[in-house]
């Protein structure tokens, strides 16, 4: 059948256009689809929400610009929640290019919640060496970070003055798009028994479900969807929630294309075709 053959040989750039339109149109004309909160994100929220005012948490924002779409809104949402609860945040990153992103996330959240540097949060910046830094913090924070990102000694900063290891921290939060999350589980939680919450990219999320079951993690925030759930829990409307309409529409387009493509292939084979021949939309031909 001609139409089936044409469908199977569709130029892939048409699919790109469809997906692009699916991403752009809901941003221009919001559908305001509901965002359901999953137990994993609720658990992360509850764990942070239960911290008494004045508690100190270590927040490691271990990501670079390639995945900031997922983890930057998550960072802002978690930071805003902490500041709102008057939980003091000691923030850091294990990635060089995370330095600017982490600082931007903190300043965005601090501006929104009226938090002040050194009184409500400290920014330690980047330090190389995943495991070395994690173990170093467990032994002596000042050995790893004698000064903060701006060169101020930790003893001069109210937030960090009495913090020397995980023992003085009520929680560790890691927002990561890499194996850094595994190391935080191994060292901060496994070795030093620090309560741990993890936020990660959607690609990684399923890998960390077992740690929730084993109670090695208190909560798990996965991808832009997780960030959107967190924004809903703290009653803000950030980039993650704004993006969820587009996310849903693109998913529908992808599912529709998979169904149509498979149905066309099935019909083509039933009618004795070869499945449409070579892809005419190939960019490499």
């Amino acid at each position, binding site marked *: 059948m001609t139409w089936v053959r044409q469908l199977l040989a569709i130029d892939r750039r048409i699919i790109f256009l469809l997906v692009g339109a699916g*991403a752009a149109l809901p*941003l221009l004309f919001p559908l305001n689809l509901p965002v359901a909160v999953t137990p994993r994100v609720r658990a992360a929220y509850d764990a942070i929400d239960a911290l008494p005012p004045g508690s100190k948490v270590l927040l490691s924002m271990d990501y670079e610009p390639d995945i900031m779409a997922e983890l930057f809104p998550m960072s802002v949402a978690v930071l805003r929640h902490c500041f709102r609860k008057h939980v003091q945040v000691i923030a850091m990153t294990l990635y*060089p290019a995370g330095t600017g992103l982490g600082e931007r996330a903190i300043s965005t959240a601090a501006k929104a919640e009226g938090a002040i540097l050194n009184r409500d949060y400290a920014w330690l910046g980047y330090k190389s060496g995943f495991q070395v830094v994690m173990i170093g913090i467990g032994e002596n924070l000042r050995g790893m970070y004698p000064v903060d990102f701006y060169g101020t000694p930790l003893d001069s900063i109210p937030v960090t003055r009495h913090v020397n290891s995980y023992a003085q921290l009520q929680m560790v939060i890691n927002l990561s798009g890499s194996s850094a999350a595994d190391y935080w589980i*191994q060292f901060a939680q496994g070795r030093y028994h620090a309560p741990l919450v993890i936020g990660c990219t*959607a690609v990684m*999320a399923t890998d960390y479900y077992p740690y929730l079951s084993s109670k090695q993690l208190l909560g798990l925030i996965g*991808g832009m969807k997780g960030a959107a759930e967190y924004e809903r829990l703290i009653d803000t409307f950030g*980039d993650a929630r704004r993006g969820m309409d587009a*996310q849903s529409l693109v998913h529908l387009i992808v599912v529709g294309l998979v169904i149509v493509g498979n149905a066309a292939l099935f019909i083509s084979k039933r009618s004795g075709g070869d499945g449409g021949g070579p892809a005419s939309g190939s960019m490499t031909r």
Partner: protein
Amino acid sequence: MTLQTWIAAFLTLCVFSFLYKDNPFYRFAEHLFVGAAAGYLLAVQWQNVLIPNVWTPLLHDHKLVVLIPLALGLMMLARAWDKGAGIARWSLAFYVGIYSGVAIPGYMQAQIFAQLADAAKPFAPGWGAVNSALVLVGLLTVLAYFFFSAPHKGVHGAGARVGIYFLMVAFGASFGYTVMARVSLLIARVQFLLRDWLHVLPGP
């Protein structure tokens, strides 16, 4: 609108242009990214690692112990010359030894023992028992699939076949999340173009 926004928008469009076909704009953006990332990485490593960990302790605090890691680090660079490979092996041996000592106990504790303990715990009460049973069946059948020292026949073969279904469900869930992650990246770029560059969306 700042100059940075215009540059970022131009580079974003350069990268998106690859979706039509390979072109000089895409290659320009790609090469610029590699160069800028390498330069940024070098500058941050110098500022955040070498100065506070080597320069300041050595020259200002006179901590001579810093010379040991400094020497080991410099010995690594000896690999650049054929005759220096042997020197670099001393540093590598030290690094591998330290890394193994640090990583193996942590991995065993967090990824093996804790997970085994969780897998062996009693079934949850009520409907949670169904979930616990699924986890147990999944664990045993997937392990059966990956046990290659005996042919996949009889009970072992049946278990392995069930294990394949569990694996396919896991791969499907993982792939679904992967699609979501990639779409998120696209959405963020479109948000940037429409809001920060074209100002057709409301601000954050």
